[in-house]
């Protein structure tokens, strides 16, 4: 390492990053023993769906927006893209239901919930911009209908669903970037705080397996791990 000056931004950023997420926390090879339900795979399934969406979407973007209308292979990749979007919302909502019923915002994890919720809310217009970019009858209908809702709240003045060029740009670049950034923040926060522990049934049952003594008395707010 170079003899960096004390006010080096690089050193400060690196030290803060490593302090928040040391490698063994960023990519742990173990999980608490309470991570023992199929509901837990729906978070990674959401990420997996996003990977398939972006991969298939990238192939569609490589060949341009008209390609899938006049080639069989193009139509096939469009089909993969469409079904992976259906899968994405499917698994993401099941993940959301699981996290709600687990009160997964506990223990200082409110930002995990917030980033997850915002990801869902941003995914909705990401999908909508895709639907209006299809350049077929569905796109014509959805755009001429959606414009009324958006115009009523003034959003139509700067977000024009009948403007294919604008919608395609939002769909292929701007909104996917937003989704990826939000998902990354969400996952990093989960790594930082750990998977939320189970809701304690009774104070006297808060005997943590493997510890020598009962857990200390409950405090008002759970600390970050």
């Amino acid at each position, binding site marked *: 390492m170079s003899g960096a000056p004390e006010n080096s931004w690089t050193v400060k950023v690196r030290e803060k990053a490593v302090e928040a997420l040391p490698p063994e926390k960023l990519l742990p090879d173990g999980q608490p023993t309470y991570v023992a339900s199929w509901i837990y795979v729906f978070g990674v*399934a959401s990420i997996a769906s996003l990977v398939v969406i972006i991969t298939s979407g990238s192939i569609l973007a490589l060949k341009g927006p008209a390609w899938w209308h006049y080639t069989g292979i193009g139509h096939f990749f469009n089909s993969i893209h469409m079904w992976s979007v259906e899968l994405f919302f499917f698994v993401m909502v099941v993940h959301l239901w699981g996290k709600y019923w687990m009160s997964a915002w506990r223990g200082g994890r409110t930002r995990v919930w917030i980033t997850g919720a915002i990801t869902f809310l941003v995914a909705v217009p990401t999908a909508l911009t895709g639907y209006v970019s299809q350049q077929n009858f569905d796109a014509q209908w959805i755009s001429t209908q959606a414009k009324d809702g958006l115009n009523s709240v003034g959003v139509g003045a700067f977000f024009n669903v009948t403007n294919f060029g604008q919608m395609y740009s939002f769909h292929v670049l701007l909104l996917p970037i937003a989704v990826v950034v939000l998902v990354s923040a969400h996952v990093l926060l989960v790594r930082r705080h750990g998977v939320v522990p189970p809701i304690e049934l009774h104070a006297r049952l808060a005997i943590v397996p493997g510890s020598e003594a009962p857990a200390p008395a409950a405090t008002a707010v759970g600390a970050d791990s």
Partner: protein
Amino acid sequence: MSLLHPKDDTKPWTGRYQPYDLVKEACIAIGVIALLAIVAAVLFSSPDDKPSTVAQWSRQLPVDFVKTAATELDGTSGTATYGPPYNHESGSVQHFLFLHPQRWLGVSHPINTAEDYVIGPLETVPNDPTLQRALDEYTSAPEKTQKAWGEAYAKPLEEDAEAEEEGKPLPKTVTVNATTGTVGVQASGTGPVPTMMTSLLSLARSGGLDGSLLTSRQFFQTDYTKPLLFMADGGLLDKRAEEQHLGGDEWGMMNETGSYPGQAWLWLYALWYQIEPFKNSPNADILVMLIMGVLSVAFICVPFIPGVRDLPRKIPIYKLIWREHYRAIRPRSSA
């Protein structure tokens, strides 16, 4: 503890860890999801209903086309009377109490329907002195006269449309030549409007109007607002949508053409339009958008909302999810 920050007895986990391969899990997940998407693509493909064009509209529904064009010319169409962001009218301007965001954001995509949909495209038609004389007569007439001509021409067309909608016999004032596809309207006091409409129908049937509406500003265009709004003022898109159950009264925003699943996640947004007072409200869109805005903020803020954040403890689904953990920590009775 406060209203926004409830008592939270969640302690950091100090118990045991099991080996858990996250990277392998992610790779398996990507493989499974990719396989599911590919299988679905092979089994069901995806919909791709061809778009409607102005040319098709003018050929399949010539009377509807001419009626719509007449209303664009005389400023009574849906788009002509819409309001912001297209013009300064108020036909579709919505508000809620003191909130008038549609007005506040103003006219950002100006459309002059008479000029953009009728006069402008007709002026590009070459070598037609009859049409040129009709255009000169129309554009040099006072506004009151233009309006009178337009209304006289549109009246039989509106009566024809009403009769068709109500299933009554069609009046004989509107005729369609089966061979040429031209529309004849029997009315007096229509001035040069019939000539203009006949030429516009001919231009549309040739495909020239599609191109004219799209390239009116520059060669390269990606903004389909003008042709889309023109078609949406007419009946062709509505007719196709009704056949596919895409109408607003059928939760249309959620639906897809054919028998494919659509945007099912829009269910709550679509639901409000099916119930009163939204169903028949002239401000339905802004009301629904505001409700969904409030609910979206509430969704983000679930951890802070008393009652909502406590429901998981009252309906203990968590006991099923963590049943293995609770069994493991249950104090064992001594022998």
